[in-house]
């Protein structure tokens, strides 16, 4: 990392443009999830019995556990961001990889659970199925995108740290703070009929 890069990162007083950009993007995505979750509860309160059609509510233990793990993965991402601002590319990459292992593990387990749910009922079964699978599907898709972003970041870090990549690390960390937090809201919504 060059001196000018470190100077720029250290002397900047406001958030870099990229971080503002991701913050606003997060605002749109948070509103998206807000609308999805609101739709879930709107449909739920239209009906006396929920889930509809005698579908069994999901078991809470595993989703809660893995979502907890995903939230914990915020810590290495935060540390990665700090390491990047310090100029330490090796530490940055190590923290990103640590988080990535947890995040990828989370996604794999979620996909297995999703497939298992699909064997019991479908989105075409009734409105509960539709909103359940859509809400979860959109959330898992966001985690997948996050994983692709982290992989891309690692490929760029492999050739060193520039000011651009420092900002990129911060941006992608912010993305993960959001994706992990919104996963909590989605999981709690998913489990709202079991809790």
């Amino acid at each position, binding site marked *: 990392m060059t001196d000018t890069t470190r100077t720029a990162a250290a002397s*900047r007083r406001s958030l870099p443009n990229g971080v503002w950009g991701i913050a606003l993007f997060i605002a749109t995505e948070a509103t998206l999830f807000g*609308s999805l979750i609101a739709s879930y509860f709107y*449909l739920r309160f239209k009906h006396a019995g929920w889930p509809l059609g005698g579908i069994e509510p999901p078991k809470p233990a595993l989703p809660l556990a893995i979502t907890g793990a995903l939230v914990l993965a915020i810590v290495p991402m935060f540390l990665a961001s700090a390491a990047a601002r310090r100029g330490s590319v090796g530490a940055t990459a190590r923290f990103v990889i640590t988080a990535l292992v947890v995040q990828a593990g989370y996604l794999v387990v979620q996909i297995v659970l999703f497939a298992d749910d699909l064997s019991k009922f479908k*989105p*075409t079964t*009734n*409105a509960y*199925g*539709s909103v359940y699978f859509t809400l979860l599907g959109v959330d898992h898709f966001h985690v997948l995108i996050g994983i692709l972003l982290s992989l891309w970041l690692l490929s760029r870090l492999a050739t060193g740290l520039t000011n651009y990549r420092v900002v990129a690390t911060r941006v992608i960390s912010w993305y993960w703070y959001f994706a992990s937090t919104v996963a909590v809201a989605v999981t709690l919504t998913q489990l709202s009929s079991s809790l």
Partner: protein
Amino acid sequence: MATVASPEAARRVQRLERVWRERPGLLGWLTTCDHKRIGILYLFTSLAFFAAGGVEALLVRTQLIRPDNGLLGPEKFDQMMTTHGVTMIFLFVIPISIGAFGNYLVPLMIGSRDMAFPRMNALSYWLFLASGIFIYTGLFLGHGPNAGWFDYVPLGSKQYDPGPNVDFYALGLIFNGVSSTAAAINFIVTIFKLRAPGMSLNRMPLFCYAFLAVSFALIFALPPLNVALGFLELDRRLGFHFFDVAHGGDALMWQHLFWIFGHPEVYIIILPAFGIATSIIPTFTRRKMVAFPLVALAEILVAFIGFGVWVHHMFATGLSSITLVYFAAASLIIVVPSGIQLFAWITTLNTGRPEFKTPLLFICGFIIFFLLGGLSGVMFAAIPFDQQLTDTYFVVAHFHFVIFGAAVFPILGGLYYWFPKVTGRMYHERTGQLSFWLAFTGTALTFFPMHIVGLLGMPRRVYTYPGGMGWSDYNLLESIGAYVLASGLFLIVANLLVSAFRGVRVGPDPWGGATLEWATSSPPPDYNFPVIPKVTSAYAMWDREDREEDARKLTRGDLVLERGHETPASTVLDADWDEILEMPSDSPWPITLAAAAAGVFAFLLLGHWLVAGVFGGLCLAVLAAWHRQEPQLA
């Protein structure tokens, strides 16, 4: 900044010109990331869609010119009526306001050299163009959207609208929404971070306040629409049951999701017009805006409160009284910030020395029509009145006065006002005034009788009506009015086109404007300003000492930033200097990404999910290539 005094200054300007020179020819336009070129692209594309929407309107009005007319059968009429609404809102008024006016002017007004994310800016344009082509492909294939611009379910469901019409609508609007979201993010970051050092938030032009408010509104309004459209497509194409009552879904949920977007959308439509009005009025009244802080606050409040009123589109659906009363109260409260602005504009006109040139005439027309539309809007906040007159021509009158009269008139005035800046020539004033009177008369004649015919019980969205209802004469008047209006619009285009080639040449500031776009040449150079301007008040152009200081700064090399493709970033509140930003110049990736995205939507429409997924992967690949180019710090 026309004259350069010293050889030092000349050398710096030469360097700027070399660094910022746009690539020539067609390739230059396809790869441009310059906000001014992108603004021009948006302008011509949205005007083309305006013409298309206008033709649709004339066809509708001609079909309705007399009872039981046979020009358009119901299927064609329904497509014309729906596509007219979709075109005018999503493909004309938003793109021209935000993409053309916003893009061209905001960086100039804040003393910057470009938007915060120039490549994403280009992407917004190409996505807009592609989404418009997508929707019109449906129309040209005879499968245009046909269930109304708000496409209520179950009418828009597969069962009752089995063809691809609604899929063109839903996918096309999701596609279009990505463009607007990207633009909104770009404007917010630009307005927050790229203001010239010294332009603290309270010294920012009111035009920029309007665009800040509109951008935040877009951020929060579009996602509910995307959720609604996503649910609709999942129901239609994959057999989901979001809106299907038989399987636990709810038809009213569509209306809630749609109007949670739809109401803020109308404030999104009008806020840029407020910004244009608050730019033109000070210039032509030769005084500062009365109650500037109140007006700025009002612009922001309108956007904010606009999120809390959506149920007033659903007063006839049988929701509980307490719900209706709450939303009616909120709908009345939102009148207040608009009232403040209206009164501030009128008071400014009265206390200044107004010159009633064409731009100001259009703003006067805007004030009158906004008031008219606003007053009928207030009436709709009276629940029982709404329950009689909603879904009649009375509401068609209301929204055309606020959309056409109040959002489009400032756009037309703005075209005249900034024409000299963009082209370096003046339009023909007499013709301009005639075009105003034609447009004003045409608007009044087309839309005012609609109040009456609505009060006589004529419902909306009818492809024909029987004689003997007392409606025929008014419909005839309205249709004639539409032709008068069209002639006025045609005259505006003709005036501007001819003047672009033969108008009298002008310098940087023919009007004595207050904002910074008037500080640079007409048209502006590719780098906007040779020196990032010094700003110490909200009316920067009227601070003569600051403008003279800029000339001296050029010689000194103070904030010229000619070493690279550079513009400064400053802090959000006080605009203290923060860092130098290196801007990308041109790039093939935005248009490529838009093309890949078009592939995604085309194959989703056709139902080839896997191929759509492949194009999605292609989008990711293009994004990776895009981000390989890292702006280098000087």
